[in-house]
């Protein structure tokens, strides 16, 4: 299939880029800057990844074979996966998104061969464990909020407080970019489909959508 070969080519290029860029980023300072999600380049990278992922979704489920809520869930998962790939593995939440999906696929394949060895995540309910000893003002209310935040950001429910804050700020910036990219894509698609239906001829109209 042309779409799968092009997506694997994109993945290979992504991996090469991750290897080279991993060597030149210094270890000092934060590894994932929230401001990088606001560059136009990142937006373009994510948009093209999103489009490829959506094409795969569309090819995987032909029209009206899946129900509408299931299809939107597929779209949401594809968008999250594309976002995680765009993070290039430098943030914990992106690795958690990709790892959880891979784990789920593997568990579905090996469900009959052996018992699922997913350990129950028992994190201690005591509020004091997430804070370093000797730090004042860790009231239970704060720890409760921190726990809720840890549940919202994927893969960060056990992080200490400062790492959780850093992951959350990167995640928020990435989510904002995801919203911007998906909105733009929805605008383009709706304008294309509305203009195509308005022309009512069915032949390709080569009028570009208004920028």
């Amino acid at each position, binding site marked *: 299939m042309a779409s799968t070969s092009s997506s694997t080519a994109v993945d290979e290029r992504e991996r090469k880029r991750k290897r080279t860029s991993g060597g030149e980023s210094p270890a000092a300072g934060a590894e994932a800057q929230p401001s990088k999600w606001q560059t136009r380049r990142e937006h373009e990278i994510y948009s093209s990844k999103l489009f490829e992922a959506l094409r795969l979704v569309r090819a995987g489920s032909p029209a009206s074979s899946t129900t509408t809520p299931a299809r939107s869930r597929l779209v949401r998962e594809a968008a999250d996966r594309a976002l995680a790939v765009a993070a290039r593995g430098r943030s914990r939440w992106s690795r958690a998104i990709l790892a959880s999906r891979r784990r789920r696929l593997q568990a579905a394949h090996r469900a009959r061969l052996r018992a699922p060895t997913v350990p129950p995540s028992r994190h201690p309910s005591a509020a004091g464990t997430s804070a*370093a000893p000797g730090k004042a003002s860790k009231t239970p209310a704060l720890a409760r909020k921190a726990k809720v935040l840890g549940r*919202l950001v994927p893969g960060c429910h056990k992080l200490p407080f400062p790492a959780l804050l850093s992951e959350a700020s990167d995640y928020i910036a990435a989510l904002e970019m995801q919203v911007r990219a*998906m909105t733009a894509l929805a605008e383009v698609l709706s304008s294309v489909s509305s203009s195509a239906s308005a022309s009512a001829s069915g032949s390709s109209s080569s009028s570009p959508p208004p920028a």
Partner: protein
Amino acid sequence: MSGRRSSSRGNSVSEEEINELISKLQSLLPASARRRGSSQASTTKLLKETCSYIKSLHREVDDLSDRLSDLMATMDHNSPGAEIIRSLLR
């Protein structure tokens, strides 16, 4: 894990680093809850703002993916649309 933080000797992270992270997070949030002298924003309120903001972003992404899936379904019937978009994105 502890080797990634820039100033982590041992396990404790300094208080000012946490404050720096908190202020960075606060700058990301929409400025709806920021008042004059924003230093009085307690961390609890900030975390609550952050949680609600992330939830609203999730909801927005869900709505957008609903919309996109509907658009994709209608777009199946005119494949010239996909060609145009693909040529625009490359």
